């Protein structure tokens, strides 16, 4: 059995806590961007997922994602109820930390991924349907994808796809699923006619600050160790984020005439998303370029949304879908074995093959995540309805779904 390293364990536990904090951070990020009458409804999505997905993860989600492989497609139920997931290290996933530390770290990823999708259907989704959707989506979309990319014998992992901390599993996955959700649930009442300005941008920016902070756990924690690689991932993460915030602000200033705080905050998130898959494989200058690219591409993607006419209320597609896709491709360009021997070299370091693998991963993820989410939502719509009633949407989710008001001045 492997020896438990206290430094690795301490950093992994800290990282797990940091990643968990990202979900309430996301709740504030999203909450500030919706109208006041929906602030609690929006925050509630994230909070409820923290509870619901944890339970699903413990009972069977972890097993399906990381358990004994079946055909490269899914894990078995061998770790049902965390049976067999003890405090000794796991030779592959976690050689120097207790197995449960890895499990609980991964739980936080399983939590935040469905929470990201909620931005697409904000301000109009029925709470009951949302609960069932989250449970089914986690099981049918998140767990298999996590298995393909990170599970032992998962087919994308076997193929050589590189995704250090979840660019595919978390961001492309949630981004494309969000597209299916936005298309099916339809636009908010009054979209394009009534103003729907963010009701509390200071709250949103606070959320981004928390996300930036927590993301160090997300990326640097994915080294599953405290040492050279976690430092490299930490630095890459920070540099890319700064680069993306800068480039989003810069291009926004150029195109629209003034830089906005929402733009700076959104740019930062775009950078965090883009660097996620690459964080353990690239050096600081590559990270900077990846960040710059992420900021600009995601800004343009968000502008494009208005041309396509779908109501992805909080830009999950533009930032997570497109940002994650850029990140996966960028990994195929900038990955370097000099940074991480266990990785690979990308196109700019003499190896064209990795890029092809990354592209396949991206395309399959798009198709699978979109397809299953679409079918799932269609069925749920037929059985229960996706959307609240018109009067409920008018009154706001806080009152209609939760009998609460966010603010009682």
């Amino acid at each position, binding site marked *: 059995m492997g020896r438990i390293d206290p430094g690795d364990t301490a950093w992994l536990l800290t990282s797990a806590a940091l990643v968990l904090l990202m979900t309430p951070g996301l709740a504030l990020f999203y909450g500030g961007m919706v109208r006041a009458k929906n602030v609690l409804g929006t925050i509630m999505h994230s909070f409820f997922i923290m509870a619901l997905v944890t339970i699903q993860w413990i009972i069977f989600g972890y097993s399906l994602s990381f358990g004994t492989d079946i055909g490269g497609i899914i894990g078995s139920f061998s770790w049902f109820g965390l049976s067999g997931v003890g405090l000794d290290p796991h030779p592959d996933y976690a050689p120097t930390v207790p197995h449960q530390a890895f499990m609980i770290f991964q739980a936080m990823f399983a939590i935040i991924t469905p929470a990201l999708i909620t931005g697409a259907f904000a301000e109009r989704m029925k709470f009951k349907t949302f609960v069932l959707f989250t449970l089914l989506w986690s099981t049918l979309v998140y767990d298999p994808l996590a298995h393909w990319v990170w599970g032992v014998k998962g087919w994308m992992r076997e193929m050589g796809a590189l995704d250090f901390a979840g660019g595919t599993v978390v961001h492309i996955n949630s981004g494309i699923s969000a597209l299916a959700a936005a298309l099916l649930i339809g636009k908010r009442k009054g979209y394009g006619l009534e*103003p729907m*300005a*963010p009701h509390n941008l200071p709250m949103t920016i606070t959320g981004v600050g928390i996300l930036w902070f927590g993301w160090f756990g997300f990326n640097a924690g994915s080294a599953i160790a405290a040492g050279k690689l976690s430092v490299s991932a930490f630095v890459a993460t920070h540099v890319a984020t700064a680069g993306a915030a800068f480039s989003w602000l810069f291009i*926004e200033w150029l195109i*629209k005439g*003034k830089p*906005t705080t*929402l*733009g700076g905050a*959104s740019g930062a998130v775009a950078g965090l998303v883009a660097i996620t898959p690459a964080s353990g494989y690239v050096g600081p200058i590559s990270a900077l370029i990846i960040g710059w690219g992420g900021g600009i591409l995601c*800004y343009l993607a*968000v*502008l494009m949304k*208005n041309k396509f006419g779908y109501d992805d209320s909080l*830009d999950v597609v533009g930032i997570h879908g497109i940002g994650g896709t850029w990140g996966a491709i960028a990994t195929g360009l900038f990955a370097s074995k000099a940074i991480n021997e266990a990785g690979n070299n990308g196109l700019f370091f003499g190896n064209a093959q990795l890029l092809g693998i990354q592209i396949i991963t991206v395309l399959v993820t798009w198709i699978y995540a979109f397809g299953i989410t679409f079918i799932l939502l269609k069925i749920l719509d037929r059985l229960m309805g996706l959307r609240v009633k018109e009067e409920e949407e008018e009154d706001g989710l806080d009152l209609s779904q939760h009998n609460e008001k966010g603010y009682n001045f």
Partner: protein
Amino acid sequence: MKKIEAIIKPFKLDEVKNALSAVAVQGMTVTEVRGFGRQKGHKEVYRGAEYVVELVPKIKIEVVVPDQVVPRVVETIAKAAKTGKIGDGKIFVLPVEDAIRIRTGERGENAL
């Protein structure tokens, strides 16, 4: 008795309040309102989506005064609230049928 309703620019509230107490106006009601006349609103941009906000924040001051002081009060408000730029606001004078002081039951001008 007349009610004088004045819609003014928010930053002028203190000046108008002080000017009114200098002419012995005892009390007032102040509300935050939004509206527009000839003043243009402003533009807000959130992730590329542009909103033109036509309603401009203003302050509404309501005072009820005896008939004979109405011209003096109107002039006081107008002078204090004026900047000379579009959006300075308006003053309306309305008749008041009765007034009651809740604590004592006094009516009419004695209630003011």
